[in-house]
């Protein structure tokens, strides 16, 4: 496809606490063996979009480590391929405030975006997990004659509370975008069109719009391009009807993970391959006396204890007599004998010593920071 994929690897604001203290949102582990970015990135690859730029802002060490040169996504290409774009500051005085908004980020990387051969751009964040048919999306964008197509969904996958700050799009009878509201009161009325943050636009138009906005000191794509230019540009909507998970706070992160424990959801999410960094670890080992039910277990794990309703990343060790319930355990963490965990998110490389107990609640999971020893 004649498309450049752009992935924003960070969230402009999130309440993920310790989870994004050391890493950018895109490299947040998800569903056992994946990272958030694997979902949009695999989506591009599965739809034949093999020219992808990832815009990085800060703490993207783990992201670089995960993506490498893009081999696992088959994105080592002479034509196109994967490019991670580290921050590029346009102005001397704004060193400490890199990227005042998504427009600023696009402007900072325009030298690279301009050089690609693609005619269209599909932009996405890495805060959402979905499987979208980008081919149909592009077709509709071209057919409708839209300047910008904004992808929305009417179903935030049973999200009980819509994250505040989520954008609501309004269209008129002809399907033309009219107005934009920012969700402040957690309203979730049926029929509301939530912006997914996925947009299609002609690359040449994007270049012009970004340059104009920058000249006027406008930095936010939603407010300063969609809303400000809604009368001038033909902005249309495209309803995405598949599954969508949104991760912007700790409860949402937990819930997104838990979704993968339902077989129907897994079937939809893994209908097309999701690529991720390969680790060459051994298959998971289950020892006598282990008890595992309704859980995702990744390779390299060694399980001697009990695991229920949980997602276990690669290389996790769970000792004899340990009980892990309703929890998310990230890679290479060690849970020693007799430990009890309930509603806990254990980040990478954590050690929980013998017989410790940690209990959170579904509405407020305990988060243990990367590398902690308890």
């Amino acid at each position, binding site marked *: 496809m004649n498309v450049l994929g752009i992935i924003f690897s960070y969230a402009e604001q999130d309440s993920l606490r310790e989870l994004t203290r050391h890493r950018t949102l895109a490299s947040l582990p998800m*569903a056992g063996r994946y990272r958030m970015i694997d979902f949009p990135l695999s989506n591009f690859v599965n739809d034949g979009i093999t020219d992808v730029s990832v815009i990085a802002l800060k703490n993207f060490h783990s992201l670089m480590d995960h993506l490498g040169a893009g081999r696992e996504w088959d994105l080592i290409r002479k034509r196109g391929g994967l490019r991670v774009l580290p921050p590029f500051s346009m102005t001397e005085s704004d060193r400490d405030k890199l990227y005042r908004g998504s427009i600023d980020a696009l402007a900072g990387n325009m030298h690279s975006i301009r050089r690609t051969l693609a005619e269209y751009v599909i932009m996405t964040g890495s805060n959402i997990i979905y499987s979208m048919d980008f081919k149909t999306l592009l077709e509709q964008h071209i057919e409708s004659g839209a300047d910008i197509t904004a992808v929305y969904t009417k179903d935030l996958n049973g999200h009980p509370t819509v994250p505040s700050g989520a954008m609501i799009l309004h269209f008129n009878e002809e399907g033309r975008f009219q107005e934009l509201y920012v969700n402040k009161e957690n309203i979730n009325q049926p029929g509301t069109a939530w912006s997914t943050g996925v947009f299609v636009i002609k690359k040449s138009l994007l270049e012009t719009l970004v340059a104009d906005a920058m000249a006027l000191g406008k930095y936010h794509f939603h407010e300063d391009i969609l809303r400000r230019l809604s009368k001038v540009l033909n902005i249309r909507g495209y309803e995405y009807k598949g599954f969508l998970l949104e991760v912007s706070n700790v409860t949402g992160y937990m819930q997104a993970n838990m979704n993968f424990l339902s*077989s129907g959801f897994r079937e939809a999410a893994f209908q097309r391959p999701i690529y991720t960094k*390969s680790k*060459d670890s*051994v298959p998971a080992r289950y020892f006598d006396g282990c008890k595992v039910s309704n859980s*995702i277990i*990744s390779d390299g794990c*060694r399980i001697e204890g009990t*695991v229920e309703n949980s997602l276990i990343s690669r290389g996790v060790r769970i000792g004899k007599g340990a009980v892990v319930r309703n929890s998310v355990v990230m890679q290479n963490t060690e849970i020693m004998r007799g430990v009890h965990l309930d509603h806990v998110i254990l980040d990478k490389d954590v050690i929980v010593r013998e017989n410790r107990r940690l209990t959170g609640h579904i509405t407020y999971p305990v988060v243990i920071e990367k590398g902690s020893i308890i």
Partner: protein
Amino acid sequence: MRHRQKKEMIAMLLAGGQGSRLGVLTNDVAKPAVPFGGKYRIIDFPLSNCVNSGIDTIGVLTQYRPLELNAYIGSGQPWDLDRLYGGAFILPPYQSFQGGEWYKGTANAIYQNLEFIDMYSPEYVLILSGDHVYKMNYNQMLDYHKGKNASCTLAVIQVPWEETDRFGVMNTDEEMRVYEFQEKPKEAKSNLASMGVYIFTWEKLKHYLIQDELNKESANDFGKNLIPDMLVNDEPLFAYEFKGYWKDVGTIQALWESNMDVLDPLIPLELDDPPWRIYTRSSNLPPQFVAEHATISNSSIADGCFIDGTIENSILFPGVTVEMGAVVSNSILMPNVTVEKDAIVEYAIIARGAQIGQSSQIGQWKRVEKEGMHRDISVVGEDITVAARSVVPAGTVVSADIEEVSV
């Protein structure tokens, strides 16, 4: 101007064997491509050993059913063998101006690739076979070879005296210099068996390969011809004793046993060994899901599996499904096998893609097992469908679909 990197040692991996004693498991693939150890194939072991020993140029000689092996090796990337200079090369027999022929024997296969080896002008050539499971540092063996000033060093391993008649046996003096080689002897003088791992000084090997080719009577085989020739000419041949796990997985029984060895903490075949990883082409499947009714003990389970039944002492390769009520024990389930509801699979090897129907029994056995003995291993071939409620007695090889019997 040409930049060419001279290599100190390159490896030639003999991967053309059919492995006919593995029966239905090698109907469609060469033996080195047979799955092993939960996610690997046999050939991953010599390939990973090479890479971990710092050998980055490997010729893989194929002949029997090469398609799957070719696709599997590909660019060599999973083993880090996609190199600017060197890397992995598939070397099938080829035609040339003088004509061409199949590889007649192991030595002839190397002879036909003299030019390939000369491209890298190595000092030493490592000859390997793709039939064995072991972790070995070839670099240490090379140091030994150099220290002994040998023309050829053969890796050997102590085997039980009663099994010496299955191996090529090396008789050595105290210095480990080989004075006699006995192929599958009735009365062995030593229990040092050849592992099929040789390091040759290239200059010497080249000389003997050319000599051997001139001899029309020769079977062009390393064990039968080339090594005896070198002994006759008093070349310095040394045995290098390897102490570790090594197994020829040439029979169904041996393949089953050595897979089970992976589950035995007392047997020194640890695959979870970060400094000496075994690399393999990954399958890109989602992580495994263990459902509500699962009971698992002492087993190895790979990505993409769905488990809702009982698994004991078994090895499940990627993408295996075991439904509710099914029991799998002491068995090896290769990729994408499905075991339907309430089926029982015991002491069996189920090949890729086979479907075991509801309530059927594989490896059924009426007699009581004696201590230290287990029933014979059953095998279900690739993509075979075993219909619901079928009974397959222990030791049976299923090579065609079993259809439903109407009652």
